């Protein structure tokens, strides 16, 4: 028999017992919906976390540190060696010193960084307020943690203000220093920007301001490469120079690993619901098989082949799975979007940043829908085989 007639008859059979069919499909909808809903939560949280970690362009940046125990220092000679490696587009160093910041009568301990303007392009710490370094050596960029300690509420208030900093130089960063430790006091700098950065208070000064005071050893070198496919090669080369190389991709991979596990656990909860619904399909088909035993007998007498009867039952099972899968995916997706929408309303009212904690990737949705179809077909195998092997004469005598 032609497949389209089988499909039509299968559809009519399901329609004939529409109440039972709807309940069976509802089981699949709940199972698939739960999976889509829960796993979308996993995807959403993963996406949020990754967004916090950084943007795609940071995948092309390596962080090169000098190991604490080693005698290899990151200085201009090493920077040049690294800059000359193939596929390195640009580099920018970071100096890190101890010190203080003073504003009016308030003062706080702070990290004193020395950085170039482009450092902020290669780093997750980007300017949130102000225009950044212009080239003048007496400029400074504060981080938000420092603003809190200095009692600044609105970052704009501090722009253009002159503050003072103390910078502690040591022989380990400035080898030509006469003493072991020297403090440059009350350097006057004008605030030209603020970066969002929580944790320790810090102020960024122009790199040259600190190198001119004798600093030669850098804490960190940001290495921008032309494509992330060279990460492993360059990491190997730079590590051979005696440095440690960090790459944000490693963090992302770890985060992904954690979230993949999380999604599997969430999916498994939904899977339990799906398992129950699979039993529902099985039960429905078995009852239907028993009800239709005589019907199967007469279909055989009227020339329907065993394999067509088998197909008919498989199609009915598959239809339940496919319809339930499609509807379940839509329900799971819709529920997530609804919650996203409600959260957005609450966030806007509370004046907070809106977040989407549910995210359903299309390939995942398609996969789950297909999975439901497979579950349907799978549970249909046994009833279909039974239907196929019903002996027509026994079936016709069946009461």
């Amino acid at each position, binding site marked *: 028999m032609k497949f389209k*007639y089988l499909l039509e008859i299968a559809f009519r059979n399901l329609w004939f017992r529409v109440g039972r069919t709807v309940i069976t499909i509802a089981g699949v909808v709940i199972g698939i919906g739960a999976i889509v809903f829960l796993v979308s939560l996993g995807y959403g949280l993963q996406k949020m976390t990754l967004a916090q970690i950084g943007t795609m362009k940071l995948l092309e940046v390596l962080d090169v540190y000098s190991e604490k125990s080693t005698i290899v220092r990151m200085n201009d000679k090493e920077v040049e060696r690294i800059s000359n490696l193939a596929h390195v587009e640009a580099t920018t160093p970071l100096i890190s010193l101890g010190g203080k910041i003073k504003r009016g009568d308030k003062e706080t301990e702070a990290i004193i960084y020395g950085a170039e303007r482009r450092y902020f392009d290669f780093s997750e710490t980007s300017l949130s307020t102000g225009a950044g370094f212009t080239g003048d050596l007496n400029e400074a960029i504060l981080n938000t943690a420092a603003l809190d300690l200095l009692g600044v509420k609105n970052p704009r208030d501090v722009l253009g203000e002159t503050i003072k900093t103390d910078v502690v130089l040591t022989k380990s960063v400035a080898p030509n220093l006469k003493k072991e430790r020297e403090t440059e006091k009350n350097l006057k700098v004008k605030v030209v920007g603020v970066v969002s950065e929580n944790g320790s208070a810090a102020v960024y000064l122009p790199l040259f301001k600190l190198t001119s005071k004798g600093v030669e050893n850098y804490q960190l070198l940001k290495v921008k490469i032309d494509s992330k496919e060279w990460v492993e090669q360059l990491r190997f080369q730079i590590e051979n120079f005696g440095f440690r190389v960090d790459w944000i991709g490693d963090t992302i991979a770890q985060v992904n690993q954690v979230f993949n596990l999380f999604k599997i656990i969430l999916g498994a909860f939904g899977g339990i619901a799906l398992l129950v619904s699979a039993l529902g399909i099985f039960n429905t088909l078995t009852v239907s098989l028993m009800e239709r035993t005589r019907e199967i007998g007469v279909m055989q007498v009227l020339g329907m082949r065993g394999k067509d009867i088998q197909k008919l039952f498989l199609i009915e099972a598959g239809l339940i799975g496919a319809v339930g899968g499609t509807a379940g995916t839509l329900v799971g997706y819709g529920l997530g979007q609804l919650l996203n929408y409600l959260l957005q309303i609450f966030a806007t009212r509370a004046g907070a940043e809106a977040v989407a904690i549910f995210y359903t990737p299309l390939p995942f949705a398609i996969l789950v829908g297909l999975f439901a179809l497979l579950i349907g077909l799978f549970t249909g195998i046994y009833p279909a085989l039974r239907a196929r092997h019903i002996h027509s004469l026994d079936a016709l005598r069946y009461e």
Partner: protein
Amino acid sequence: MANRNQNKSKKSKSIVIETQNLRKSFRFAKSEISVLRGVDLKVKEGELVVIFGPSGCGKSTLLNILLGLEEPTTGEVKILDEEIYNLSPDERAHFRVRRMGMVYQQPIWIRSLSVIENVAFPLYNLNLTKTSSLREARLVLSWLGLEKFKNHYPATLSGGEQQKVTVARAIVANPTIVFADEPTGNLDTKAAGEVIETLKFLNRKLGRTVILVTHNPQYLHLSKSLYYMEDGKVFKTSSQAIAKHIAEISI
């Protein structure tokens, strides 16, 4: 349809059913029960044959064997010169749909399909298109005056109407032979009469060979080709002989 023309050209009283020394026995636990003990049957094209016999004489088994649904223990079954038990089960199913129609005592439906779709169902199995299957089904329904029911569900019709639709389904694939196994068993007298009229119409007007199996003596007069079946054997007989025989048994 080529098939239809072929039937007409063969009208010269060819043999459509032929069995030789047909035997069938069933095993129950350790005992063996012989249901058919050597049936020889010859039916000519266009005949209306009545096979009469008490319950349990083996009528249904004989019908099932003729329909190709149950293999005989020994003996040959030739339908339209085809030795049907030499065919594979699928070939046999196909052959059955093309050549033989069946009316059971109780109509059995594909409940989710309408009357016309049920009637067209055998044609779907012959891989006809939906349009032509439904066209044939409507034609057959109109022959039997059933067109008005075509969009009803069969279960909503009366017993007699349902049985007439079964007849329509039995002839939709234009078979040469139509078997009817106690077709009036569950019907009141009026409906039974209508069904019998329908079968007579098939035989006289549409030229089909009709095999009516019954234990109701009312239908003995329907045909001169009358067989009496008892204890697994079939005898050619007349209505008077049967009447006499029945009288003897009841004494």
